[in-house]
C-alpha cells in the first residue's frame, strides 16, 4: 500500500482553549490563547476569533506577552520552539529553536531578552522531573534562530505553569511542588525552601497547587489541594518566615491571581465560583458563582479592567472588574470521555456530541464555534466529585434533522440502572429542538445502539439493548384526539436471546441489519420479517455498515476477532474478508467510500476504500497513538476540486476523528491549505476595529454610509483636506517670517483657498448619487 504525503493530519477546530492560561493584551481588546497547534486571538468584546496564528507543529504550551513590546507575544510549544508573533496583524516575527519539549513559559519585565521555560530534566520525553531554565535570546535578524545557551535556574519544578510565579519587579521567582515552596532571589543567587508538614495521616492533602506573587509587596499567595490559600511573608529568612491562611474553597484551589495593583486576589476551583479576596481585608470577599464548570486558570489584563477564567469545559469567560460576566468564548466541550457518537446535524451541518454534563452541543466545524447547547437531562448539575448524575449516552438524528432521539442513563453503585429515552422534534419557529416524548425505562438494560430509518415514508426509530431485545418506535398519529403526535413502541424483536450489539439501516431504509453477537440478521422494517442470517466470522460483530450508492448491495461488518467482512446481499454470501482489527467503521454518507480505523500495536491506521474495489483509496499508517473510537464524515461547505486520485475522497466531505486524548483531528489536503492561506491573506485588512467576517460584510458598508451622511449634513466638513488649502497653509506656516509678503496679501490668498471651486463641488455630488 502506498503512503500519501499530500494529506496531513491536523488539528482543525474543536481544540482545547483551556489547556493553558489565556493572555489579555495590554489594551484589553484581544485575548490570546493556545489552541491545539495554533494561537488564537479573540476579540474580548465580540468573542470572535480575529486571528489564528499558525506555525507550531505540536501542541502550544504557553503564551505570554513580550514585556518589551506590548504588541508582540511569545508562544512556546511541545515542538521545541518559541515563536514571537505580532498578534495584531497575525504575523510570525521570529522562531527560536530550543530543541526541548517545552512545558511552560514565563517572562519578567526586569529580565530583558531572557525567557524562562520549563523543560524536562533529562533530555527524555518520559522524564518525570522538570527544571526551569533561562533562555538568553540571541540578537540576530534571522527569522529562525537556534538558541544555544540555557542556564538552569530551578531544579525539580512542577510542569504546571500556575506553580511558578515572578515576584515584585522580577526580583525573585517562586515555585511550588508537592509540599515545598522554593523562592529564588536573582540578586543574591540564593534560594529558600519552605516545606509544609504532610497532613496525610490526618486525611488532609495540603500540597501546593498554584502560586501567585503580589505585584507590589513581597507576599506570595499559594493555593493548596485542601482548599486553603496561604499568604507567605518574610520569606527571605529561613526561620522567621510567616504565613496567614484563608479558607473558602472546599476542594483544591486550581488557580490564583493577584490583580495588577495587588488590591485583590482572585481564586477559583471546582466549585465554579470566582472568589475575589481583598488584599489585607481578607474577611471581605466577592463571589461570582454559577460559572458553569470548574475554573482551571485565571488571567487578568495588565490594566486590571478585565479578568478571564478558563473552565474545565473548554470555555473562557471574560469578566469585567466589577465582577460581571461580559463575554463567553466556548470551545468544543470534551469531557474526559465522549459517550455519544459524533453526529452531524443535517440542518445546521454542525457537529453534535455530548457537551457539558447533561447537554448535547452543536458545534460548527467551519467556524470553529459552538452554536448552542441543548439541555437533555434538564436537571441541576451538582459540582461535586463522586456524585452519580444523569449522562447523555446516545443520540441520533433522522435524515432531515426533524427528529432527535437521546438516551440518558444513571448508574448508582447499589441501585438499578435508570434509562430515559427522549424524542425531540424540531420546532421551526424557535429553531431548536422541543421535547416530544419521554420513555422511562425503554429497555431493561443498557441501550447499545440506536438509529432512525432513512426511508422518507415512515419515521421509525430502532433501539437495541443488552437485555436481548431490539425495539422499534413509531411516531403514532393522534389526529382524532387533537393531540400532537407522540412516539410509542411498535415492535419488540430478538434472536435466540442473543444480545444485539449494533444495528444499521440500508441507505433506502428497506433493510435493517442487527449484529447479534456472532450472527448478523437482516430484517425487513416494513413487515418485521427476518429475511436472512449471515454468520461467517468468528467473534462477535462490532460494527455493521451498508454500502451506499453503487455499492448498496454490500453489507460490511467487523468483528472482535480481527475480521472485516463484506457480504453480498443479493447472493447472501461472503464476498470478501480480510483479517484486520477494525476498531471503527464509518461510511461516508455522500459517496461509496468507507473509512476503517485499525488499531495495531498501540497506534491506529486508517484505510479508506470502496467495498466494490479491492484496493484502498487511501491509507495512512500510524495515524495517532491509541485507539480511535469516534469518527465522522462531515460535509464540506464548498466542494474541493482536487484532481489527485488519493485525495478525491476528501472532495465532498471531511473525515474528523477523536483520538484517545480527546483531540479532534482531521485531514487536510494541499489544495485546501492553499485556499485557507489565500483567505487569511484576504482577511488581513488593517483596520482599527476587530475584523470579523461579519465586519467585512457590514462594517465597510456602514463606514461608507457614515461618510455619506456626513457629506449630506455638513458638506463643509469635508473641505480641509483639499490640496490647494493645505499648500496655502503650509506656505503660510513654513516660510520664514522675514521673506513673507504682507499679511493683507496672504489673507486674501488664504481665504480663497478655503472656498470650494464649483467644479470639485459637482464632482462630490456625483459621488453621492452613484452608489
Amino acid at each position: 500500500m502506498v503512503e500519501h504525503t499530500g494529506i496531513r493530519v491536523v488539528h482543525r477546530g474543536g481544540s482545547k482553549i483551556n489547556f493553558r492560561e489565556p493572555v489579555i493584551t495590554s489594551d484589553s481588546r484581544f485575548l490570546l490563547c493556545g489552541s491545539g497547534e495554533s494561537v488564537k486571538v479573540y476579540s474580548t468584546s465580540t468573542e470572535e476569533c480575529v486571528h489564528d496564528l499558525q506555525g507550531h507543529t505540536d501542541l502550544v504550551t504557553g503564551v505570554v506577552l513580550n514585556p518589551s513590546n506590548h504588541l508582540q507575544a511569545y508562544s512556546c510549544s511541545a515542538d521545541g520552539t518559541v515563536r514571537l508573533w505580532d498578534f495584531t496583524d497575525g504575523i510570525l516575527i521570529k522562531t527560536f529553536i530550543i530543541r526541548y519539549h517545552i512545558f511552560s513559559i514565563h517572562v519578567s519585565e526586569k529580565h530583558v531578552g531572557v525567557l524562562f521555560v520549563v523543560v524536562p530534566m533529562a533530555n527524555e520525553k518520559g522524564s518525570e522531573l522538570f527544571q526551569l531554565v533561562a533562555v538568553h535570546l540571541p540578537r540576530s535578524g534571522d527569522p529562525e534562530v537556534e538558541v544555544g545557551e540555557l542556564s538552569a535556574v530551578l531544579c525539580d519544578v512542577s510542569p504546571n505553569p500556575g506553580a511558578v510565579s515572578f515576584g515584585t519587579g522580577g526580583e525573585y521567582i517562586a515555585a511550588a511542588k508537592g509540599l515545598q515552596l522554593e523562592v529564588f532571589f536573582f540578586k543574591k543567587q540564593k534560594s529558600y525552601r519552605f516545606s509544609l508538614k504532610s497532613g496525610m495521616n490526618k486525611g488532609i492533602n495540603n500540597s501546593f497547587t498554584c502560586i501567585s506573587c503580589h505585584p507590589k509587596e513581597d507576599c506570595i499567595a499559594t493555593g493548596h489541594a485542601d482548599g486553603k490559600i496561604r499568604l507567605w511573608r518574610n520569606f527571605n529568612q529561613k526561620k522567621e518566615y510567616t504565613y496567614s491562611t484563608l479558607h473558602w474553597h472546599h476542594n483544591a484551589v486550581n488557580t490564583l491571581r493577584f490583580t495588577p495593583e495587588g488590591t485583590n486576589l482572585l481564586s477559583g476551583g471546582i466549585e465554579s465560583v470566582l472568589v475575589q479576596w481583598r488584599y489585607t481585608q481578607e474577611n471581605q470577599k466577592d463571589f461570582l458563582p454559577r460559572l458553569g464548570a470548574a475554573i482551571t486558570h485565571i488571567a487578568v489584563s495588565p490594566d486590571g479592567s478585565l479578568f478571564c477564567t478558563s473552565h474545565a469545559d473548554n470555555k473562557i469567560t471574560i469578566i469585567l472588574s466589577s465582577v460581571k460576566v461580559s463575554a463567553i468564548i466556548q470551545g468544543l466541550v470534551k469531557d474526559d470521555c465522549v459517550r455519544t457518537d459524533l453526529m452531524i446535524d443535517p440542518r445546521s451541518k454542525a457537529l453534535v456530541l455530548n457537551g457539558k454534563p447533561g447537554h448535547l452541543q452543536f458545534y460548527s466545524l467551519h467556524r470553529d464555534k459552538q452554536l448552542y447547547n441543548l439541555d437533555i437531562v434538564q436537571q441541576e448539575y451538582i459540582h461535586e466529585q463522586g456524585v452519580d448524575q444523569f449522562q447523555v449516552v446516545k443520540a441520533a438524528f433522522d435524515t432531515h434533522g426533524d427528529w432527535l432521539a437521546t438516551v440518558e442513563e444513571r448508574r448508582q453503585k447499589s441501585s438499578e440502572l435508570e434509562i430515559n429515552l427522549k424524542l425531540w422534534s424540531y420546532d421551526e419557529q424557535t429553531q431548536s429542538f422541543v421535547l416530544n416524548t419521554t420513555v422511562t425505562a425503554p429497555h431493561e438494560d443498557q441501550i447499545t445502539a440506536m438509529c432512525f430509518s432513512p426511508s422518507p415514508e415512515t419515521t421509525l426509530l430502532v433501539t437495541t439493548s443488552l437485555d436481548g431485545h431490539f425495539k422499534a418506535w413509531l411516531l403514532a398519529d393522534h389526529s382524532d384526539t387533537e393531540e400532537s403526535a407522540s412516539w410509542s413502541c411498535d415492535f419488540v424483536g430478538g434472536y435466540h436471546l442473543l444480545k444485539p450489539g449494533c444495528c444499521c439501516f440500508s441507505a433506502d431504509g428497506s433493510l435493517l441489519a442487527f449484529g447479534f453477537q456472532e450472527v448478523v440478521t437482516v430484517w425487513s422494517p416494513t413487515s418485521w420479517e427476518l429475511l436472512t442470517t449471515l454468520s461467517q466470522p468468528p467473534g462477535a460483530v462490532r460494527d455493521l455498515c451498508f454500502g451506499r450508492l453503487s455499492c448498496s448491495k454490500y453489507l460490511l461488518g467487523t468483528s472482535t476477532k480481527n475480521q472485516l467482512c463484506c457480504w453480498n446481499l443479493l447472493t447472501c454470501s461472503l464476498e470478501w474478508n480480510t483479517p484486520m482489527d477494525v476498531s471503527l467503521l464509518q461510511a461516508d454518507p455522500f459517496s461509496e467510500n468507507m473509512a476503517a480505523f485499525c488499531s495495531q500495536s498501540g497506534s491506529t491506521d486508517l484505510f479508506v476504500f470502496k467495498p466494490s474495489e479491492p484496493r484502498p483509496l487511501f491509507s495512512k499508517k500510524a495515524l495517532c497513538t491509541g485507539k480511535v473510537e469516534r469518527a465522522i464524515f462531515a460535509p464540506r461547505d464548498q466542494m474541493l476540486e482536487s484532481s489527485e486520485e488519493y485525495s478525491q475522497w476528501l472532495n465532498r466531505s471531511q473525515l474528523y476523528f477523536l483520538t484517545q486524548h480527546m483531540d479532534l483531528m482531521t485531514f487536510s489536503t494541499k489544495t485546501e491549505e492553499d485556499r485557507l492561506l489565500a483567505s487569511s491573506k484576504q482577511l488581513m485588512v488593517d483596520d482599527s476595529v476587530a475584523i470579523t467576517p461579519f465586519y467585512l460584510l457590514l462594517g465597510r458598508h456602514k463606514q461608507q454610509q457614515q461618510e455619506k451622511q456626513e457629506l449630506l449634513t455638513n458638506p463643509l466638513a469635508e473641505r480641509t483636506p483639499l490640496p490647494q488649502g493645505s499648500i496655502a497653509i503650509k506656505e503660510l506656516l513654513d516660510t520664514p517670517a522675514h521673506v513673507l509678503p504682507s499679511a493683507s496679501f496672504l489673507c486674501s490668498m488664504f481665504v480663497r483657498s478655503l472656498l470650494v471651486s464649483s467644479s470639485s463641488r459637482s464632482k462630490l455630488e456625483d459621488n453621492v448619487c452613484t452608489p
Partner: protein
Amino acid sequence: MGEFKVHRVRFFEYMPTAIRAMSFNAHTERLALARVDGSVEVFNFADRYFQEKVIPGKDAHSIEALCWVGGRLFSAGLHGEITEYDLENLRPKYSLEAYGGPIWTIISNPQGTHVIGCEDGTVKLFEVLAEGVQFERNLDRQKGRIISLSWHPSGTRIAAGMMDMIRVFDVLTGHAIQRLLVDRSVGGCKSRETVVWTVVFLSDHTIFSSDSAGKVQVWDGHTGTLVKTHQLTKWDVLALSDESSVVAGTSEGTVVQFQFIAPNLQQQEKEWVRTRTFKNHTHDVRALVEIGTAIVSGGMDTQLVVRPLLEKFEEKCFASGLRRIHFPHRNLVSCAQKARLLLLQFPGQLELWRLGESDGHGKPGDILPLKTKPEKLLYLKRKGKDHICCSALSSCGGWLAYSTVSSVRLYRLQTDNNISITKVPKLPKVLRSAHQLCFSSESSYLFAASSQSSVLVISLNQSECKYVHTLKPKSGMWILIYRLCVAVDGKWLATANSDCEVHVYNLQKLELHCMVPMYSSCPSAMGIHPTTNNLTMVHADQQIFEFSIAEKQYTVWSRKLQMQGLHNLWLNRDTPVTHVTFNPKNPDQILLHDMYMFCIIDQSLPLPDQKTQFYNQMTLRSLSEQERPSHLHAFKVCKSFQDLMCMRLLDDQSLVVVERPLMAINSQLPAPVRQKKFAT
C-alpha cells in the same frame, strides 16, 4: 508487668473553672493565672510549666486582672479592692479598697506604679511601697467605665479602653489628650455599645485595641487616627498581648497573630500584618500572654495552652511542643488504703466514698461484676468563705482533716456500720492553717506543713489531739513546703519546698536528719520505700532519684540511672508525675503516674537505653514466653487509663484509678458561640 485488680473510678466530678486573667513575669519566668472562682495559680515556666503554687479562692472575690511588680503579685477585681498575695504562705497578704467601684483592670509600669481602671470612670494611680500600696492621685475622671488600660513603655502616657472609645492620658498632667472613637458593630444592632476589651500601647505610639464588635484596630497614638481595622470575627475579641508581635484571642477560641513586617523585603518600612491563626480552644479566649518563644492562652474551656512559635527554636526540644495543662499538678484525692475509702477534694466541699467490692475472677482485661456498688458516704461542706486548699484522710479511715487559708479542721470518722462524723473540738492554737496535711500510717500523728517552712507534729488519740513539736530546717528562710511524705514505719518525714530543697526529718528524735543534694527542678512527687526506707523523688523535668535515708546518699540504682540517662520518650512526656507509691508485696516495684499513663518501675530489670523500644507492652504481649525476658526493661508503662487524677495501691493489692475524662469536663462547659460550619 504484674497483674492487679483495678477499681476504675469515674465518680470524681472535678470541674476546673475558667481562666480569667494571666500575667507573666519574664524576670522570674513565672506565669500567674487567675480563675473565675478567685483562685490564683503560679506556674514555673523555667521548670517545665510546673504548677508551683495554688492560692485558693474565696467566695464573692472574683479577679479581673493580675499584675506582677518585681516578685510581688497583685490582683484587682469587681469587689473593688486591690489585693497583694503572700506567695510563701499562699494567702492574700492584704486588700485595699480603692473607692472607685468595681475595678476592671490593674497594670503597673516598670517604675512600680500601679494604675487601676474603675467602673466610675476614674483612672487611679497607686504607688507600690515596700510594705504595701498607697493611693497617689486620680487622672481626669471620664464618663463611663474604664475597661482596659495600657502604659506606654516610657511611662508618660496611658491608653484607656472605655465604652465606644479609647482615651489617651498624659500621666504628668492627668489630662486626656486623645479621644479615639471606636465604631459600633457593622451588622449588629447600633444601639449596643462597643466595649474596648483590651488596649496595647506600643513604644512607637501605635495603639492596638480589641473590642466587642470583633475588630482589632491599629491607631496612631500621636495623631489619634485609625490606621487599620482587622475584622477578626463576628463576636468579641477579648484579649490582646504584645511582645515581638501582637496576638488577639477571640470568642471563637482562635488566637490571631499580628506581625510587624516589611511589605517589601528591601525596604525598612514595616507595617502590622495579620498572619497566623491558631485554634486550640473551643470557647472564649479570655487571657493571653506572649512569652517570646510561645503564646500562652487560656479561657472559658479551662485549659492552659502553651503554643510554641516554631521559628524561635533551632531544634526540637521540650519547649517546642504544644502543651495543654488541664489538671492541677497535685493530688485532690486521698485514699484510706486499709478502709478502702476515697476522699475527694472540691473547692467548696469534701466527698467521702466507699469503693465497690467484687469477688469475681476473670482474665486480664475482663470487667468484673460488682458485689457492692461504690457509695457516697459523706458530703462535707466547708465553713466560711475561703476555699479548701488541702485535705487528708488517714489510712485507717478514722481521721479526716482539711485546711483553708484561715483555719484547719479535724474530724473523727466512724464508717463501719453507722456513719458518724465528729469535729475534734480543741485544736492546738499553732495549727491555724496548713498547705499540706498528712497522717502517719498508723494514724497516731498528723503532720501539717505550716507557714514559715515549718512542719507541725500533732499527736492524735481517741480523746484529744496535742501539739508535739515544730520541725524546722536550720536555715531561717521562709519557704513554702508543698509536698510531705511519711515513711510507713513512722520513722522518717520528707518535705519538699519551692526552692527545690528536700529535707528529711527523724521523727523519733524530732530533728533534721539530712538534706538531699539540691537539684534544679522541683520534685513533683516523693515516696519513702516501706522496707528499705529509700526516698524516691520524681522531678518536674521527669528525672528520677532514689536517696537512701540511712546512708544519706543516692543509691546504686539511682547512680546507674543517672549514668545511663533516662529514655527520651520518658523525658519528653507532657505532664509531671503526681504520685509515687510502692508495692509492699514486691519491694523492687515503684508505682508512679501522671495524667496520661501509669508506670511500674522494676528495679530488678535492666534499664532501657535510647535504642530500645520504650513503650513495649504491646510487643511483649505478642512475643512467646521464651523470648520475653530478653525484651524486658525496667519501665513498664500502661496507657489504658487516660486523664488520671489519682492512682493508689490498696492493702489488698488492688489498684484504685481515678479518671476524669476530658470529654466529661467539656460536656459540662457552657455552649460555645455558634459558628457556621461548612456543610452543616
